[in-house]
């Protein structure tokens, strides 16, 4: 049985998922994910025509609250755990393409 996934697929998905996988991990995952997807293929075989999908098992709809301002988390408490912080904002490395 051929693997539903190629190495190129796995590399593409890793990029989408923001995971800097090693070459070894790409190989392992190509095999493991392929095996899991094959196992999941029995789901694909079922006849589900006319069956609506379930996204929430206990359906509640239009859960709203009044549009009133309420206290939130203290900004200092939130920033206290930041890896890097400046002027009350989260500091990150440069975003690609921005002028220095």
């Amino acid at each position: 049985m051929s693997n539903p996934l190629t190495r190129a697929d796995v590399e593409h998905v890793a990029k989408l998922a923001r995971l800097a996988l090693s070459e070894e991990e790409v190989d392992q995952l190509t095999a493991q994910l392929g095996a899991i997807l094959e196992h999941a293929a029995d789901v694909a075989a079922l006849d589900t025509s006319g069956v609506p999908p379930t996204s929430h098992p206990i359906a509640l709809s239009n859960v709203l609250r009044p549009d009133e301002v309420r206290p939130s988390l203290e900004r200092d408490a939130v920033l206290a755990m930041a890896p890097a912080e400046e002027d009350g904002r989260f500091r990150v490395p440069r975003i690609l393409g921005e002028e220095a």
Partner: protein
Amino acid sequence: MRDGDGLVGRTAVELAELIRTGDVSAVEVTAAHLARIEALDGEVRSFLCVAGDSASAAAAEIDAARARGDELGPLAGVPVAVKDMFCTKDLPTTAGSRILEGWRPPYDSTVVARLRAAGAVVIGKTNLDEFAMGSSNENSGFFPAANPWDTTRVPGGSSGGSAAAVAARFAPLAIGTDTGGSIRQPASLCGVVGMRPTYGRVSRYGIVAYASSLDQAGPFGTTVADTALLLEAMWGYDPMDSTSIPSAPEPALARLEDGIAGLRVGVVQELTEVEGIQPEVRAAVDSARNLFEKAGAEVDIVSVPSVEYGLSAYYIIAPAEASSNLARYDGVRYGLRAEAPPGREFDVAAMNAATRERGFGAEVKRRIMLGTYALSAGYYDAYYGQAQRVRTLIIRDFARAYERFDVLLAPTSPTTAFELGAKTSDPLAMYLSDVCTIPTNLTGACAISVPAGLDGAGLPIGVQVLAPALGEAVLLRAARALEAGFAFTARPKLGEEAA
């Protein structure tokens, strides 16, 4: 000399009463449990963080409140172990992952806030599979936990630490989360009671999200009564959780001893016949059936054919939702941030990718990858869309079963505790541990595991009772009847001298 002067090994109901009447102090109770943890958790590794100072301070406050004549909450002075998926203000919360190592939340999860308001003493944060992904606690980003009944074996997962802590009597109560069976399966492997409430019954606010349509928090105890006591302190509407059920729950603890005469019990045929089921596990389900009949219930077999597809649907839906939930761990606002190697500068995308590569373990990466693929363009409908439709089929099958039956009976885990390392090389083999528990998460209903006895190797066997959504009262009543019949009083011999 008796362990903890007889305070360790008492139920929560007993301890709460002793503290209320002033026979013992909350400080003594907490100290006794902390001493036991210190002496024996080295072998079990059920805790990632023992909250010695804050637990002692909380206990002292309970004693002061009692001395003032204040009214005490239902869990006043009772130690509770908290799975490290629940945000606890000022205590580290790691989700069992290096990516959150050292992180302290700026707020309490609703469940923890409610337990504190009920007077419970948070004694520590328990070990777990990373981001609740696993069935053995071997995926912990820190170290695996062990089963107190045999420390060469797993406690189950993902709430392995919570189950082990209660089994080892480090605390009479613990809380966990159950997305695919992660409360019930470790409860079964550790010989304690563990329950998964109806989806939306317990607030998910402040719980690290794994799969948002499947996650639910729930209680562990050594008895059904203790489990019900803890559940009632946890549950109820929370405006901070948009999936929280608005209506008030039907009381369960008060009706526990009402009996089950006339209760219609269905034994789920397909789950008693799963691949690899241990004969002693099947025998335990037969015993449960007999106990139900003796107690006045009507028992019959019921077929729920689509449970066969539960595992496959779950291992598309859960990873898909997880891939979305775990996108937030990117090194920007909290947790680990990877530094660029010397001589290289990161842009933010490279920082994200390096952070996640370093911070996440193998199983987490596997599920993120699987989920991302299942949701990606061109595959969404074939995988995730199809799994959601299969989910509807499973819900319909159970609804049909509940037209004829009030509760259902099944194994919890196909086997008793396996050895550490036995299943780590084959992810699919590990996933099979959840085949009996997963259907309840897909349907959003409630279920409980009750200890039935020990197998030939002295390892605990659990049986599972299932009820429809919002059926906690009948579920607990049925579980109480089984508990009374099984009369399971065995305890792990952790730390005891040979007789």
